């Protein structure tokens, strides 16, 4: 389906911390088309500064009691100018929303789904978890953050029946350290290859580590990559990821149309 561009209105903006917020916007046309792992391109002004849109995973597709899609949300972490503007939006403000864009996650061919999230990398996993649970795939979320208060939406995943494995860098909640620690323990305990599909989103060193671990233990992985992106539709060639191709060559692939979800075994980690 082609993407749509809507001038959406902010329904709510929940600041989770000094850096994180969940922005809910009335973009049902986008939400109705969205598959888990897809993204939208947002901007907060129709003037030319800032000019370019920024990519965000669709965090939630929100439905009313009758199941009709009413809105989408994004999980934002304040880092630069547009993410700062998005953090500051209020109900009623306009947001220009183009989407859905990109390739979604593939469902696991068999066995379990293990989602691995680092920080704001939680973003694509709410919709993925819902989709997996709906088809009875046993689903685990390995979720790491710096501190306990930066672990969000735990009740949401718990309510869905997703098993939670938490890590914090300061040890405040869950296992102390990086999320790859308990992931590796769990991978080690598996009885053979191709029993789980590992889905990962987070900082690139984490993605590289997760993809390598999955490969070492014979499990397929899909990673959602974040790149500086100009257009979201394949026009500008700015958001490229180096990918090993079947002919043995490594080529840059546009993450907007050849991703953002990639087979973890094909990405060339730098």
């Amino acid at each position, binding site marked *: 389906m*082609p*993407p749509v*561009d809507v001038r959406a209105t902010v329904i709510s903006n929940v600041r989770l911390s000094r850096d994180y917020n969940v922005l809910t916007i009335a973009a049902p046309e986008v939400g109705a088309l969205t598959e888990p792992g897809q993204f939208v391109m947002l*901007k907060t002004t129709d003037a*030319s*500064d*800032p*000019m*370019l*849109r920024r990519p965000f995973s669709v965090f939630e597709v929100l439905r009313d009691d009758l199941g009709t899609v009413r809105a989408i949300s994004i999980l934002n972490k304040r880092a630069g*100018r547009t993410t700062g503007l998005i953090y500051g939006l209020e109900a009623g403000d306009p947001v220009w929303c*183009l989407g859905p864009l990109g390739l979604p996650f593939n469902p696991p061919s068999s066995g379990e789904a293990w989602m691995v999230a680092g920080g704001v990398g939680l973003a694509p996993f709410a919709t993925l978890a819902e989709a997996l649970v709906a088809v009875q795939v046993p689903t685990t979320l390995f979720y790491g953050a710096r501190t306990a208060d930066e672990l969000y939406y735990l009740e949401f995943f718990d309510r869905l029946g997703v098993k939670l494995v938490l890590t914090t860098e300061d040890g405040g909640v869950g296992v102390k350290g990086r999320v790859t620690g308990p992931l590796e323990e769990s991978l080690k305990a598996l009885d053979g290859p191709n029993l789980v599909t590992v889905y990962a989103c987070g900082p690139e060193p984490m993605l590289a580590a997760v993809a390598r671990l999955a490969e070492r233990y014979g499990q397929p992985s899909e990673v959602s990559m974040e*790149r*500086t992106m*100009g*257009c979201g*539709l*394949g*026009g*500008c*060639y*700015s*958001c*490229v990821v180096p990918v090993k191709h079947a002919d043995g060559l490594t*080529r*840059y692939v546009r993450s907007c*149309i050849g991703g953002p979800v990639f087979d973890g075994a094909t990405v060339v980690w730098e």
Partner: protein
Amino acid sequence: MTALDMSVRIGSLVMPNPLMAASGCFGYGLEYEDVVDLATLGGVVSKGLFLAERQGHKPERIAETPAGMLNAIGLQGIGVHRFISEKLPLLRARKARTIVNICGTTLDEYVEMARILSDTEGVDALEINISCPNIKEGGIQFGCSLDGTFGVVSAIRKVTSLPIIPKLTPNVTSPASFARAAEDAGADAISLVNTFLAMAIDVEQRKPKLSNVVGGLSGPAIRPIAVRMVWECRQEVKIPIVGMGGIMDHRDVLEFMIAGANAVQVGTANFVDPFIWAKLLDGLTDYMQRHQITRLADIVGALDTTSPAKAHA
């Protein structure tokens, strides 16, 4: 109501309207087939192609700047042969008027590209890229020298009857003298401007924002300079001018045309709004109706410099 005529002719290339998708901003066109009917554009200019496949630069490849952006993509591309076999048939099926942007590291390579594409059904014109600021070995050495520009255009002229449109750099003192060299060498039109060589620095990290350190500036930040350059070229040459640089809406299209452009290219704005094309056409239609213009070509170069416009706050 008389039918409105927005058509533009560049040699054998006849376009129904002056709106072209700029090279490097529209992939190979097919990326956008779901959001815009390619046949409704005046033309689609392909991403810059070399004979061989190219990987381009490492990321970071773009950086946003005030009312603009820098890019140093490095002409990542699939090469002319794969373009002909994989992309061109689909562009033809969509009835897109296809202008192929050709790049070369040597004069021979440009000539070889022109020969190959001249022998290919479905190519409507060639845009000669002698102005990419981002790669050392390509094009720009021709585009920054009057003799180089004349040489590459006249060599291509000898091997093709397709309309040829050299794309000029703004990174010279007088683009108009390059327009003159291109016309003298037999160009059917010129396009300008390519991007302005520029850079941006992250001061906290003391690092360039682009892996290539420098890149090309595009977007509305450059539009007044591009309009001036088009206006200067209009004084210098008779051939059609394809103007570009930061066009964001139909008023910007008109500004370039009144300055002397016969057609325009839209690049960066398509990144912001891929649905821009129909809005531009609607805006032009409205302007023609309000000003009772039946042929849009009548406003080309129609700038009245006898006095400045009345200022509006």
